[in-house]
């Protein structure tokens, strides 16, 4: 896997969450994830095809995503429900779009599928390729979330 594919997703994640949800986001140290168990309570997963095939996933702790969506809507969200799941799908979609624009500037063109969302503690995130799963943890003032990038 070309590690240069990862940075655009980190940049896009920061930009999307700061622009749409007004939260300060700090990226932690990337690591190779060995299992399929999500570290968050709700995850968006999206397939990408193009110069390489793969998936990205964004998985949020409950407190973190409730704060993010509350900020996006301008009203307090207090439980994981269909509205939160929908928002996670759209956030995943926006992160993918922003990252693909940066990748296009590097000469790497990708197309994206429509994202799917999974909720529940210890749910699985299945990536479509057998490449390494690079996980990047992020901190906010109200909890953590992690993105996973996996390309063949």
């Amino acid at each position, binding site marked *: 896997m070309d590690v240069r594919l990862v940075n655009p997703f980190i940049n896009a994640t920061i930009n999307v969450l700061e622009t749409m949800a007004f939260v300060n986001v700090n990226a932690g140290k990337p690591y190779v994830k060995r299992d399929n168990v999500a570290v968050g309570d709700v995850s968006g997963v999206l397939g990408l095809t193009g110069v390489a095939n793969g998936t990205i996933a964004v998985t949020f702790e409950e407190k973190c995503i409730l704060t993010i969506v509350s900020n996006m809507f301008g009203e307090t969200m207090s439980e994981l429900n269909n509205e939160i799941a*929908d928002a996670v799908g759209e956030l995943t979609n926006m992160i993918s779009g922003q990252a693909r624009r940066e990748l296009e500037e590097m000469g790497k063109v990708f197309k994206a599928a429509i994202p799917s969302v999974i909720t529940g503690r210890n749910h699985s995130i299945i990536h479509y390729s057998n490449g390494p799963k690079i996980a990047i943890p992020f901190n906010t003032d109200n909890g953590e979330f992690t993105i996973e990038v996996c390309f063949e």
Partner: protein
Amino acid sequence: MDTSIKVLIVDDFATMRRILKNILKQIGFKNLVEADDGTTAWEVLEGQKIDLIISDWNMPKMTGLELLKKVRASDSYKTTPFLMVTAEAQKQNVIEAVQAGVSNYVVKPFTAEAISDKLEKILK
């Protein structure tokens, strides 16, 4: 900018429709209609007069680009302002949308000011 016009918001994500509705209401628009894909949007357009269309690109059933082409091919809506609000902003996407007759283009993520500025331009 005339905020009494009827606006159709098309996006398969309820989240984005809600965010756009909030922004439009803040600007002063009150007459807002929603659709969750291009096919439903077309049914709305056939059933009532819409003055401004704000649409996502990547949707099931009928994409925003397909909707735009259908709108521009119709007698009723060939000059109606059409704002594409989308995460799809690779060069080829923008070229296709311009060729199909889009009025303007907003890339997600966006600020409320970006939406307001684009609307000012296409509605003046």
